[in-house]
């Protein structure tokens, strides 16, 4: 158990370090557009991905997707290069922060439309069931996406077709600037599962061990019993909705309260208390994360922009003739 906890601690620390650096790079205008940081929520992606079989399972998520990509083992440099829009990026510089794809690493996006990944993920699970390959799909989304009709249509499909999927609500409590309690008819999202005849449970999304335990159960249910289920992980994002959001709708005290329950500091404290982690080992974890992230930035900086000919590439499977010049 401690081995997996140590691995998860290191994975969370890598995400934290990466996201803090991504925020700095955004400030330096190396990264443009929308950039949604995962800081504070690391335990959810890391705990959930820790139970997957990366030979046959898949992950889909929304636009706050850096953490999931890194948790799946996608190289930090390929993610950073994507944020920089470089040809060496995980999506060849054509996806950007919200659209990280790497099917070989089981990452099927990275989706910019709130909740749109939910029907898609349901279809990925349909393909797994159709083939009977034993694979499971994890579908992550937030408390904002919870209110989209796409979710409710998908839960129904997953149940009637017995699909091997786990719907993971990362309830970070804020859909952009709107607190979920203002816009949810029921504050306990996990209860919704009952309306679709499936199992629902909540877990503390600030506690990676608890997330892992909940996901072990849910993934086993999906894989062995072909039973979809819903897991709500209550968590908190430390930063604004995106880099352009100063987050004035919530108090510093609120954020500080959650920082006291920080998933990384909590796990570090627990492992230290148990004698499973020395200060030297922790310092090594921190140093490795910093080294990887520094190398990722250097790689992204030195990588080439996509060639101009890439503009019309990959719209269709077959290469396409350029449009005739106007006039």
């Amino acid at each position, binding site marked *: 158990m401690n081995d997996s906890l140590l691995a998860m601690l290191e994975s969370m620390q890598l995400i934290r370090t990466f996201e803090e650096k991504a925020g700095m790079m955004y400030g330096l205008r190396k990264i443009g557009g929308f950039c949604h940081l995962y800081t504070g929520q690391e335990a959810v992606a890391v705990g959930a991905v820790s139970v997957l079989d990366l030979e046959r399972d898949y992950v889909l998520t929304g636009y706050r997707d850096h953490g999931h990509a890194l948790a799946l083992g996608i190289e930090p440099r390929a993610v950073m290069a994507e944020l920089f829009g470089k040809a060496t990026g995980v999506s060849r510089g054509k996806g950007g922060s919200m659209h990280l794809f790497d099917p070989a690493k089981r990452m099927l996006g990275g989706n910019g439309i709130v909740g749109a990944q939910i029907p898609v993920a349901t279809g990925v699970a349909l*393909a797994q069931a159709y083939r009977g390959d034993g694979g499971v799909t994890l579908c992550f989304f937030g408390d904002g996406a919870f209110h989209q009709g796409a979710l409710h249509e998908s839960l129904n499909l997953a149940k009637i077709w017995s699909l091997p999927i786990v719907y993971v609500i990362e309830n970070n409590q804020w859909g952009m600037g709107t607190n979920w309690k203002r816009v949810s008819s029921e504050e306990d999202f996990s209860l919704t599962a009952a309306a679709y005849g499936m199992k629902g449970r909540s877990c503390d999304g600030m506690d990676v061990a608890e997330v892992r335990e909940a996901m072990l159960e849910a993934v086993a249910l999906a894989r062995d019993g072909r039973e979809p289920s819903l897991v709500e992980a209550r968590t908190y994002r430390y930063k604004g909705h995106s880099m352009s959001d100063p987050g004035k709708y919530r108090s510093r005290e609120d954020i500080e309260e959650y920082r006291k329950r920080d998933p990384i500091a909590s796990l570090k404290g627990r492992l230290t208390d148990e004698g499973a982690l020395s200060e030297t080992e922790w310092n090594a974890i921190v140093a490795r994360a910093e080294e990887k992230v520094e190398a990722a930035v250097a790689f992204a900086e030195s990588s080439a922009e996509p060639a101009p000919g890439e503009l019309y590439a990959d719209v269709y499977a077959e290469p396409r003739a350029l449009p005739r010049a106007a006039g």
Partner: protein
Amino acid sequence: MAVITYREALNRALDEEMARDARVFLMGEEVGEYDGAYKVSKGLLSKYGADRVRDTPIAELGFTGAGVGAAIAGLRPVVEWMTHNFALLAVDQVVNEAAKMRYMSGGQLSVPIVFRGPNGPAEYLGSQHSQALASLWTHVPGLKVLAPATPADAYGLLKSAIRDDDPVVFLENELMYATKGEVAEQEFLIPMGKASTARPGKDVTIVSFSRPLLAALEAAESLAAKGIEAEVLDLRSLRPLDEDALYESVGRTGRCVVVDESWPVASVGSHVAYLVSRECFDFLDAPVALVSGEDIPMPYNHALELAAQPSAAKIERAVLRALYREE
């Protein structure tokens, strides 16, 4: 050569492609136990079973998105929309997901899926069930759009669509399902992006697709009695568009009447008229004309709804005007 209906031609294409490739499956409302709302899938459930002829709840967004997910995970879904009017509920999944996944993943994902069903007005169905939506789909890069007007084209193009590695929107028509035509008994495919000459002529080119092609042919017959030889070009494929065939024909005839049942603003017809005006400017002896659906929601009253659509008489008038022989 067998004479079969448009409906039977589609059914034969589906049947052959499902027999050929176990990854191909059909899903939609009433496709299974009901044998298809328009009987296109008749007999397929008993032949292929409920996994491959999959009835869905009335949830266009959900099941269309599930099709997209199944496609990126390696299957080849054919999603039947009971009509394209209802597909408007699923536009997000077609436009934001299916059309963009290859591009925004940097070419890593393929979306081999066909979305098909009846499009355009039938009779007495009122505004919400009588829309011709070809232009909406054709606007979107990443999609392919097919609109066959004959049983042979319906058969050959649907087979090509199912084998294609890109998302294809396939436009049928309720009033054409019972139309008959010759279809070779030996298997054949029709490539996308190739127009066909439905009637040769030298005086004017009438360009059309889908059901209005029948009105164009009727107009050409009537014009022949007046000594006017109209060439009728059936686009069949709206994206990719056979620009070479367009320019070759208009280059010979020097006159062009475009017939499209869509609304006239920002439509396939207006785009084709623009292309011909631009590329054939030096050959044109008259302005390019557009006979379109009227720019209104469809009325219920039968006389009014007929007045809202292209007709042989309207096409004939437009041709005579282009020949400066207005009566």
